């Protein structure tokens, strides 16, 4: 992806900030909306270079669609993860088999890497220890496969098919 | 009924306090602090409902922000200087 224009990035930041402001105040009072718009413009001008690289390109309908589909998938994975945790904590013998494994990812975008790391941290039995380039080092509570390929198949593959479309 | 939930969360906070005082390494203690702050945020939100005052949610939000950056600061310090 090439450089996107500054205006696009600025508009995207202001839009996101304004939506957050509406959620924060929780009202559609014209006074709140006006002040919110003013401060979204100011804060956006201060932070848009840090915040986003792609600007309005993030609002591509395909990306938004995949993102919406990703939310229930992720929540379901999270609930399964917690039932798994409940089983391991409440079981009297404490059935754990921990270790640190290595995974590879096909994602190249930093935000995509963050989303993948957070998804890994919140889903069954895995927590991201470090990220170096495309190598993920993951603490796995129940190691099933020590090899890089096997671990990637188990841990990163399920998320990548969504995240690749959203963030690449 | 809401008192029961408040009590249960308070019990959870006290249980994690065990790890805070016991915890053999520094990392254990900071993990305990991290969990305690998350629990406390939930507790504050429940208190907002208990007192029927929506403005207490702002307190919970600011507390979540400050606690998060605090935990990151501890973690970075432990990793090797700031």
């Amino acid at each position, binding site marked *: 992806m090439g450089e996107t224009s500054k205006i696009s990035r600025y508009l995207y930041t202001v839009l996101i900030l304004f939506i957050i402001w509406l959620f924060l105040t929780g009202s559609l009072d014209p006074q709140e909306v006006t002040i919110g718009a003013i401060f979204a413009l100011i*804060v956006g001008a201060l932070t848009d270079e840090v915040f986003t690289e792609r600007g309005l390109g993030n609002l591509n309908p395909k990306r938004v669609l995949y993102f919406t589909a990703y939310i229930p998938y992720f929540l379901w994975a999270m609930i399964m993860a917690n039932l798994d945790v409940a089983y391991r904590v409440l079981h009297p013998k404490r059935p754990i088999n921990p270790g640190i494994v290595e995974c590879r990812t096909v994602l190249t975008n930093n935000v995509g890497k963050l989303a993948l790391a957070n998804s890994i941290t919140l889903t069954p039995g895995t927590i991201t220890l470090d990220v170096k380039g495309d190598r993920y080092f993951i603490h796995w509570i129940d190691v099933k496969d020590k090899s890089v390929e096997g671990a990637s198949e188990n841990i990163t593959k399920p998320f990548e098919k969504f995240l690749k479309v959203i963030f690449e | 009924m809401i008192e029961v939930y408040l009590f249960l969360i308070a019990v959870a906070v006290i249980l994690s306090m065990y790890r805070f005082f016991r915890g053999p390494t520094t990392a254990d203690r900071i993990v305990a602090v991290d969990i305690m702050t998350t629990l406390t945020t939930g507790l504050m939100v429940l208190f907002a409902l208990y007192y029927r005052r929506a403005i207490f949610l702002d307190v919970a939000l600011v507390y979540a922000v*400050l606690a998060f950056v605090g935990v990151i600061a501890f973690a970075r310090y432990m990793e*090797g200087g700031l």
Partner: protein
Amino acid sequence: MVKRIFAIVFILIIGFWMAKALDQVPFGQDRMLVGKYYLEHVKEETGAVNAVTAVVVNYRGFDTLGEVTVLFIASTGVAALLWRKKRKRTAKTEGSVVLTTGARLLLPFIMLFGVYIFIHGHLTPGGGFPGGATIATAFLFLYLAFTVYEVDHKIFEPLEGLAGVGYVTVGLIGLAIGGYFLFDWIWQTWGIGKENIGRLLSAGFIPIIYTLIGIKVGTELTGIVDNMIKEPEEGGQ
């Protein structure tokens, strides 16, 4: 050991006298005359829903100016004490990509939370000081994530000065119009927002003052963080 016993005995003595003194204060009785006045008149005189804010900014506005000055002196003192020619960060490792990207994503949100807190000072338990602290937290987070990051002093220091000057200017306009320093000219003379107490644009100059205080506190605390996080280089006196 002796020290510790001495400390415990000392604390016990102080505690005893404090308990004895507090024993004289009648709890639950209606003795607070000033407080009662504030609570009864705060809405019509200042237009703030949050009485604490009205007391801090309106009735005791001059004290608040003093507090901001104290913070300014503290910040200057830290800078003076820690000043060296060559200073650098001691962090050995850069934060991982997760932390740096997270910091970049969360910075605008934390700043917006800070803005929300100080602009709603007259409606919610917030105000300039917590809002400014939240904004400073956003910059602290950037400092923690990036080992080479540094705030732009050319923007921050003039901004801090402007906020302080703005506070005094608002007070002086009050002096010109109403006869005393920090007279609430927006509320008392123009009466803007009399009909919508409890909405955002009410309570006279409280939102303006709190915006200025928020900017000032935020920049000052960021300056303190910037000073404290760097350490002098070896031999760099």
